[in-house]
């Protein structure tokens, strides 16, 4: 193990490096740490917002930097780790900054903070970050950087008292205005849904009828299945004909918030497929990129564990192809045992790559399905809008 002090650096003997940030709060009810990686050019700027890898965008577009673990328990504290494959980075990227941001208050609220760069097959390089007098709310913990053809790691521990916003601006990331303190506006309350526990005929959520509710069931809801299906260009259903020409590939995913406040995402990108039997009790079936799985993409929610979930935001994003939602003619169908399916058609045009389709909310033990169908450029804007990051931080308090 190589220990660095502030300012120090060490060479990395492999281009595959796992970066782990571990921390412990001084007060168990205190602030959490969000860890991000910024892919930077020689000018120390990102090329685009895609170069910021964090909870809302868990891997770089070339897959070279990926979130591996997100704030998982690590003994008395927590850790977040990234897998980096430095030789897969674009040649214009010459450093990767590893940044820690506290939700509120300075980094000195942390009892322990360290960043480790572990090259594949050799000694890790460790920097124990001094926190006691750190006034910064966003700290550049360390950086991986290319020097004379060799990747190295530097212990930085410099940052910004103002937190993530000035830090991101420093790196050339465009920050949206903070989300309004209220949740995303939902359409006015619809008339009450038909009585629960009877077999609902198929319900289609539209602008005019944007939500439906199912009352609490003592035995839980069984297996809730969510299907995403869409039409290929030329009217060919995906799964019957292969991907050709201007075909687009949609990926199904969701953000979830557990009743204990834990927040996360389930999606194929980043290989966070979830788990049906354990938290988050949501699992994505194999990614239908090849067309082998007929009927589009499937996700399951363990309805017997519904009490462990507070809300689930189901979304789709265009993994491949030009965003053209109108011609994709996508539809989400949610199947609940003993009830009719709930359907949300994606019938509005947009050229943005991501669509928040429906939010499933735990309503005093019941299930409320709300149509969203709102389009976003990418994960960060959507998680911001639906306040998953804020809930995430607050949820750990």
């Amino acid at each position, binding site marked *: 193990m190589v220990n660095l002090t502030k*300012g*120090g*650096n060490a060479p990395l003997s492999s281009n595959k490096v796992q970066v782990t940030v571990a921390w412990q709060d001084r007060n168990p009810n205190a602030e959490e740490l969000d860890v991000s990686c910024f892919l930077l050019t020689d000018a120390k700027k990102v090329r685009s917002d895609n170069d910021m890898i964090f909870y809302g965008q868990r891997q770089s577009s070339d897959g070279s930097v990926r979130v591996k673990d997100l704030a998982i328990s690590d003994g008395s504290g927590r850790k977040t780790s990234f897998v980096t494959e430095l030789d897969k980075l674009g040649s214009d990227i010459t450093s990767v900054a590893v940044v820690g941001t506290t939700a509120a208050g300075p980094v000195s609220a942390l009892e322990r903070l360290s960043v480790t760069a572990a090259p594949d097959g050799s000694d890790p390089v460790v920097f124990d970050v001094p926190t006691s007098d750190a006034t910064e709310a966003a700290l550049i913990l360390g950086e991986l950087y290319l020097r004379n053809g060799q990747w190295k790691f530097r*212990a930085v521990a410099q*940052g910004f*008292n103002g937190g993530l916003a000035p830090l991101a601006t420093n790196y050339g990331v465009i920050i949206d205005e903070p989300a309004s303190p209220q949740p995303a506006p939902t359409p006015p309350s619809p008339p009450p849904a038909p009585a629960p526990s009877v077999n609902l005929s198929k319900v289609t959520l539209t602008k005019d009828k944007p939500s439906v509710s199912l009352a609490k069931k003592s035995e839980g809801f069984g297996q809730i299945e969510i299907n995403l299906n869409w039409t290929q260009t030329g009217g060919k259903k995906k799964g019957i004909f292969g991907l050709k020409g201007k075909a687009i590939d949609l990926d199904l995913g969701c953000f979830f918030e557990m009743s204990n406040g834990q927040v996360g995402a389930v999606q194929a990108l980043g290989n966070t497929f979830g788990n049906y039997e354990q938290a988050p009790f949501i699992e994505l079936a194999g990614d239908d990129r090849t067309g082998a799985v007929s009927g589009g993409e499937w996700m399951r929610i363990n309805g017997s564990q519904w009490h462990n979930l507070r809300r689930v935001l189901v979304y789709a994003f265009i993994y491949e192809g030009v965003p053209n939602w109108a011609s994709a003619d996508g539809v989400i169908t949610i199947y609940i045992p003993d009830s009719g399916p709930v359907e949300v058609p994606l019938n509005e045009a947009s050229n943005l790559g991501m669509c928040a389709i429906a939010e499933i909310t735990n309503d005093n033990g019941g299930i409320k399905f709300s149509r969203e169908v709102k389009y976003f450029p990418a994960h960060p804007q959507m998680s911001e809008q639906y306040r998953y990051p804020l809930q995430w931080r607050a949820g750990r308090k």
Partner: protein
Amino acid sequence: MGLSLQKGGNLSLTKTDPSLQRMVVGLGWDERGTDGADFDLDASAFLLNASGKVRGDHDFIFYNQMVSAEGSVTHTGDNRTGEGDGDDEQIKVDLTKMAEDVDKIAITVTIHDAEQRNQNFGQVVNAFIRIVNEDNGNEVVRFDLTEDYSTETAMVFGELYRNAGEWKFKAVGQGYAGGLGAMCGQFGVNIG
């Protein structure tokens, strides 16, 4: 690009660059982008006799005493933040004007108030010190402080010294605890 000498490496300036008579010691670094105290690096020169001491306090050339008695060494002035491109501080050395009893010139670089500010070279972005032939602009030698002297706060960059009728440069690269004050003590400068 100039040579990158290892610590203790010797370079015969006369042989490497026979035209070398006037040189510029350049110290450069980037302004701090993060919050916190500025990084204030200082380049200084000590004109030393054969026993390694200054002849008098006037042989210490630094931000408060910018020209040596003979005009052989000139400091261009203090830069306190690193603002600007290229060299942020320069010390010009004219070997042709050097007094006979100056045997050696020690070039040092220090971080102002490093201890109070808890700073070292590794925290500064793109800090370097180099020697450039003033007559033709060629870089003769360069140290990358950020990279190779990251945990130091003060160091003797190198020594220009007379040897068998020619000037040589010895790359010292030796870190120094105590900063500029301690260096003054070693070289016999009385500081108030």
